[in-house]
C-alpha cells in the first residue's frame, strides 16, 4: 500500500470549496439557531403549562430523533407530500438551524435556571430594576453556565453539517468523496478530510476545556 497525496493536491481547490460550505453552514446555523433558541427557551419557562406544552413537545421530539431522519423528512417528505421542493442546501440549513435552536434553548434554560433563587431575590430586595437585575446579576452568572455546553454544541454542529452530502450538497466530506471516487484514492482523501475536520474543530474543544478548567478553579477558590 502506498500513500500518494498527488491526487489530493490536484483537488485542493475543490476541497477548499467544500470546506467553505461546511464553515458557512456552521456559521449561519450557529447565529440563526442561537437567536431562535432564546424565544424557545423563554416560552418553555412560561408559567402557563398549556402554553409551554407545544414547545416542550417540539423540543423533546427533536432531541429524541436522529438528525439524518430530520434531513430526509425535510428534503424528501416535503416534496412528496406538499410538492414544495427545498434545495439540498436549504434543507440541510433548515435542519441545522432548527437542531441548533433546540439544543441552544436547552442550554439557555439550564443556564438561567442555574442562577440560585436566593441571588435573584437578593437582587430584587436591593431594589434593582428588572433590566439591571438581568444585566448585572443574572446574566453574568447564567453565561458562565451557558458557555461550556455551547462550545460542545458548536462542535456537534460542524459534525452534523457533514450530513449535507447525504442529499447531494457539496460540503467538505462530499468533496472528499467525489475526489476519492474519481481518483480511486479513498485512503488519502478520507484521511485528509478527517484531518481537516479535526483542524477546524479542535480549537473549539481546546477553548472549551480551558474555559471549564478555569471556571472549576475559580469555583474552588
Amino acid at each position: 500500500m502506498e500513500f500518494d497525496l498527488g491526487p489530493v493536491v490536484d483537488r485542493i481547490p475543490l476541497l477548499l470549496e467544500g470546506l467553505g460550505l461546511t464553515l458557512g453552514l456552521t456559521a449561519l446555523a450557529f447565529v440563526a439557531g442561537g437567536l431562535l433558541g432564546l424565544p424557545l427557551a423563554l416560552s418553555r419557562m412560561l408559567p402557563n403549562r398549556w402554553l409551554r406544552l407545544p414547545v416542550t413537545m417540539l423540543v423533546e421530539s427533536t432531541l429524541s430523533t436522529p438528525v439524518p431522519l430530520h434531513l430526509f423528512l425535510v428534503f424528501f417528505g416535503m416534496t412528496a407530500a406538499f410538492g414544495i421542493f427545498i434545495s439540498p442546501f436549504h434543507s440541510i440549513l433548515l435542519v441545522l438551524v432548527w437542531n441548533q435552536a433546540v439544543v441552544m434553548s436547552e442550554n439557555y434554560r439550564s443556564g438561567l435556571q442555574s442562577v440560585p433563587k436566593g441571588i435573584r431575590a437578593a437582587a430584587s430586595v436591593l431594589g434593582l430594576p428588572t433590566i439591571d437585575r438581568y444585566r448585572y446579576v443574572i446574566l453574568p452568572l447564567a453565561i458562565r453556565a451557558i458557555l461550556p455546553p455551547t462550545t460542545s454544541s458548536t462542535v456537534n454542529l460542524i459534525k452534523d453539517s457533514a450530513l449535507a452530502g447525504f442529499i447531494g450538497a457539496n460540503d467538505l466530506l462530499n468533496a472528499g468523496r467525489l475526489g476519492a471516487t474519481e481518483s480511486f484514492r479513498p485512503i488519502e482523501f478520507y484521511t485528509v478530510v478527517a484531518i481537516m475536520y479535526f483542524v477546524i474543530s479542535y480549537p473549539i474543544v481546546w477553548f472549551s476545556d480551558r474555559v471549564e478548567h478555569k471556571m472549576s478553579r475559580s469555583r474552588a477558590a
Partner: protein
Amino acid sequence: MIEFLGELVHYAPAFWRGLRFTLALTGIAMAIGVGGGLALAMLRRSRLRLARILATIYIEFFRTTPLIVQLVWIYFVLPIALDIELSAFQSGAITLGMNQAAYKSEIFRAGIAEVPLGQRRASQALGLGRIDTFRFVVLPQASAVILPLFMAHTMLLVKGTAYVSLLRVPELTHTANLISLDSFRFLEVYLAVGVIYFILIYPIGVLGRWIENKGSHKWRPLQ
C-alpha cells in the same frame, strides 16, 4: 394519510428488521464503548507518558471529527490498510463502538475526578490496594456523576445508529428510505419511523433525569 396508516401494516416485517438492526448496532457499540472507554480512562491515568499521549490523541480525534467521516474512513480505508474484509454492518458497529469509547472514557474520567484525592489517600492509608480502592471507594461515588451522563450518551448512541444508513445497513432510517421509495409516501413513513425512534430514545432521557434528581443526593461524594 389515515388510510395509509393501514397500508403501513404491510411493511411491519421491514420495520421489525430495521428495529433489530438498530438495536443490534446499539448493543454492540455499547459493549465496545464501555470496555474501550474504561481502558482509555485507565490509560489516561497511566504512569507511562506514551500511553497517556496515545489515549489523548485517540479521544480528541474521535471527539472532533464527524461520525460520518469516521464511518467512511473505517468502511473504505481500514479494509485496504489492514487487508481485511468488513461488511457495512461490521464497519458501522465498530465505528460506533470506537466513537463511544472516546466519549465514555471522558465520562469515566469526569466521574473519577469527582472523588476527592483525600479519599484515595485515606483508603491507601487504610491498606486498600489500587483495585480495591477503585472498586469500593471511587466507583460507587463516581457513578453518581457517571450515570446521568451515561444515559445522555446512550441517547446520542441510538441517534448515531441512524448515520450508519449512509452505508446502506438496513437499520430504521435506511428502512424508512426503502419503504418510502416503495410506497411513495415519504412524509408518512419518515414520521412513523420518527415515532419509533421517539419511543426508543425518550424514555432513556427521562430515566437519566430521574437518576440525576433522585439518586444524586444519596450518592454524592462527601466533600
